[in-house]
């Protein structure tokens, strides 16, 4: 059997979810909707695994490319391709999808159809933005992803969902519009390298040599760099552009939080890796200190602020700020450890934070409260849940043999190679990270029975059931991934090594070959 060899597998990956969304929106039976969606997401996963199977990890070249003229007048094309940088993010997206659907089995009870449609559209948009190799195509997918997310938070979210979703939308939109302007500007420059025709192809963008004068802010490369970087930094989110995230996370329904933390934030860091650093090498190096500093501030600030959050989701949201600070740090130290670690940490964060949100969602379904102070002693009432929670927590605080360690270790190493001072600040995050997560674990699970657990003891109606089989099925893949990625990181990192080396070795005149 050789299905995967088809050259249009990337289009299949991008548009299959849209097709699924369409089918779901016309599906007549309400009862089987969830099963259908789950089945679809598994199909999608299978397709993406075919991609994984056929991917050639020995080259940094762009693979499975497809290029069709889209808007000929401006050299805009439907140009997709995958390389080591995007491959794993694609897989992450497809892996998380069935987990999310299964995780939202109970929590989403209204407008189930619309929810799944939004989820699949979102998936398509995210996959598209990871695979797009054309600036405008990328931008289209990038912005498209906002819309379903906007609905997911806005319709199925919590009490302040509208504030949160609008804030989310405006923040991200504001950043990305600057990027659009920068893209337009760069398209105007492309005739230099294409011999006359305008082009929006990323490969042509890579060829551009944009003038840069160190110290002068108002040079094209610096301005373009910041236009892109701000767009991505908001998405990451990098301190001080992070305040939309806690709100969005708190108000989003569980799958929304999962996809937000799991994949959407990675779009930002992916943007840095795919766009900012190769396109603007001089400015990236020249202003690396700024992003490293902000990354470090994010790490420490996120951790400190997480410590005092009374709401579980908010705590995890700020922990995301901290974790994504690591990723930015790793990217901008510009060495193989930092970048490799960052790429890995993106996946880790997706899995472990996604897992945490799923777990918080499960407990929220039972108690309708996320206030840490109301909990306590949950470990006695829900032991299996506790085990899963602690495993995911360990992944989040980067205990060795979990995935988190590998990424964090490499990033810290990269930070050290950049500067000793940076690494000193970065390792404080290791301490603080353990502090807030364990503080939460302690207050939720340990200690004497809290308000909620007590109430459940007396009231048979509110009895706290331990995890159901479905919920275990949701968490099991995550736990397996946590350990697999912790034990055998090479099986995953091998896919991206060539790309990262290629990027680092050819930073000044980066180009990608098409295979």
């Amino acid at each position: 059997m050789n299905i995967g060899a088809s050259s249009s597998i990337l289009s299949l990956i991008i548009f299959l979810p849209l097709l699924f969304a369409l089918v779901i929106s016309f599906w007549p039976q309400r009862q089987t909707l969830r099963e259908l969606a789950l089945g679809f997401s598994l199909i999608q996963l299978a397709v993406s695994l075919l991609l994984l199977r056929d991917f050639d990890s020995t080259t940094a070249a762009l693979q499975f490319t497809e290029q069709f003229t889209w808007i000929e007048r401006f050299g805009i094309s439907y140009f997709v391709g995958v390389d080591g940088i995007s491959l794993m993010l694609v897989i992450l997206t497809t892996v998380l999808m069935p987990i999310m659907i299964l995780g939202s089995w109970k929590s989403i009870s209204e407008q189930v159809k619309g929810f799944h449609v939004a989820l699949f559209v979102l998936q398509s948009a995210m996959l598209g933005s990871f695979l797009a190799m054309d600036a405008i195509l990328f931008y289209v997918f990038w912005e498209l992803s906002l819309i379903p997310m906007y609905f997911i938070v806005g319709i199925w979210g919590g009490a302040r969902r509208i504030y949160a979703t609008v804030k989310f939308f405006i923040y991200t939109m504001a950043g990305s519009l600057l990027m659009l302007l920068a893209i337009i500007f760069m398209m105007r420059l492309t005739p230099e390298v294409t011999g006359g025709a305008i082009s929006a192809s990323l490969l042509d963008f890579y060829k551009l040599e944009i003038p840069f004068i160190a110290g002068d802010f108002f040079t094209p490369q610096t301005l373009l760099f910041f236009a892109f970087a701000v767009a991505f930094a908001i998405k990451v989110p990098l301190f001080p552009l992070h305040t939309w995230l806690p709100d969005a996370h708190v108000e989003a329904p569980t799958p929304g939080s999962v996809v937000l933390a799991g994949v959407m934030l990675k779009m930002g860091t992916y943007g840095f890796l795919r766009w900012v650093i190769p396109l603007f090498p001089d400015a990236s190096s020249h202003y690396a200190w700024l992003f490293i500093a902000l990354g470090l501030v994010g790490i420490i600030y996120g951790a400190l602020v997480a410590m005092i959050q009374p709401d579980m989701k908010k705590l995890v949201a700020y922990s995301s700020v901290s974790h994504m600070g690591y990723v930015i740090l790793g990217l901008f130290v510009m060495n193989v450890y930092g970048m490799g670690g960052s790429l890995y940490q993106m996946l880790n964060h997706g899995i472990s934070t996604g897992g945490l949100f799923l777990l918080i969602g499960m407990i929220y379904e039972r108690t309708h409260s996320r206030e840490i102070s109301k909990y306590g002693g949950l470990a006695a009432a829900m032991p299996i849940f506790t085990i899963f929670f602690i495993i995911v927590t360990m992944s989040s605080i980067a205990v060795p043999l979990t995935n988190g360690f590998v990424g964090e270790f490499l990033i810290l190493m990269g930070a050290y190679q950049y500067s000793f001072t940076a690494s000193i600040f970065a390792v404080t995050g290791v301490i603080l990270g353990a502090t807030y997560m364990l503080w939460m674990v302690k207050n939720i699970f340990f200690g004497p029975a809290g308000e909620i657990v007590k109430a459940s003891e007396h009231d048979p109606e509110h009895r706290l059931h331990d995890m159901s089989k479905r919920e275990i099925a949701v968490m099991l893949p995550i736990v397996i991934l946590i350990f697999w990625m912790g034990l055998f990181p090479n099986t995953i990192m091998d896919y991206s090594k060539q790309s990262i080396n290629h990027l680092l070795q050819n930073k000044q005149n980066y180009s990608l070959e098409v295979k």
Partner: protein
Amino acid sequence: MNISIGLADILLISPVIVLFLFSLIPLTTKVLNKNVEQSPATTLVVALMGLGIAAGLLILFGGSDQTIFNGQLLFDGLTKWAGLIAIVSAAAGIVLLYENPSTPYRQFSEIIFLALNSVAGMLILISAINLITVFIGLELMSLSLYLMTAMSQEQKLSKEAAIKYFVLGSIASAIFLYGVSFIFGSTNTVNTAELMQVAAQTIQADKLFLFGIIFVVIGFCFKVSIAPFHAWTPDVYQGAPTPITAFMATAIKTASFAAFLRIAATQVFQGSQNLVDVLQWLAVLTMTVGNVAALVQTNLKRTLAYSSVAHSGYIFIGLITVGLSANSAYSATAVVFYLLTYAVMSIGAFGILSMIEKSENDFVTVDGLAGFAKKQPALALCFTIFLISMAGLPPVLGFFGKLYLFGAAVSEGLIWLALWGILNSVIAVYYYLRPIVSMYMKPGDTDVSDNRLYASTIMVIASAIFIVVVGLFSGPLFTMIERSLS
């Protein structure tokens, strides 16, 4: 001077003639029928037929780059495309009119008469290259519109809107004409084709000419609602019956911008940097005023009116680009494309409002949309598409419109204008999102006034499909327009 009217003239002007003739049919029938109004459906069909034939003739004969009537009218690509946009959006407006509670069905044939004549005026306005002909077209279009605005079941606000529109519009006409007289005085011609050769030089040498140009430009600025000459827009848009508002926002705006484009294409602005500066500031002011004012509105129609002002600002950027660029075809295409985009999405958006209005006095507010998505998922989705498109979010048409427009501006070095446009888009997103929030995220039971509004429904859905499909495949359309414009 040898005046002769040939077949070519007749063929090219035929859309206007057809429109005029068809406009007479319902009215004549009514008169012959002892002043008894026939079925509105028949009238509608006649009107749509007229518009359809006009559009067909325009496609057939327009765009041939020929001038007729001794250089009065030019039938080039701009005429064809702007004319088509105007005709189609007028048709859509009429369809909405047919199913709106504020429409006085007893006078339906009169409204149709006015509407078709207004469209005829638009075609003249678009094709005119003589400033006096421009004036004639402008007045034919506007005078019909003043009356249409007043013709509503709703008595108070529509009348107020009409009188405001009339008074302010007349001032604008006078200003425009005054400018024309100075252009005539300084160059001895009012033919833009002839002006094109001398404009850029004259404007530097001759203050009188510059004076005239400024008046003409401001006359147009009023028509296309550029701040601070926009003040009539929100009031009139709100007061007029929603279908007429749709008509105004789309057909009238397209025609006015097309004529304005002809002025800009003379490259007259290039002669005076001051004028260019002022125009840029006007563009910025317009976008900002439109967007911030829309931000604080609760009445949806008024929100859309202010948003229309803001969109004028965006288009104005394109217009300035046209005035500055050596190869104006590309920038002009961007403008026409955006006009098309804006027309389709406005028609859709106003169409939805028109369908929700329960009576002639009903105003749809933002909160008044609560729960619409539950009752009418398809229409809510369409409305969402329109709003997203207006906000300029991909992958729908509005995004590509903005992309081309700002792309043109950037290529002419007007980056800061594009930047302002983008900043404004961020503000705009907020108020475009609010109806979506209301429809999807708030409990309520808003529904359309009647489930049998088939024509409007079809039109709205068609617009939405257009926006999505053409959005995805905007390249060929853009190339097509550009080819016919250059």
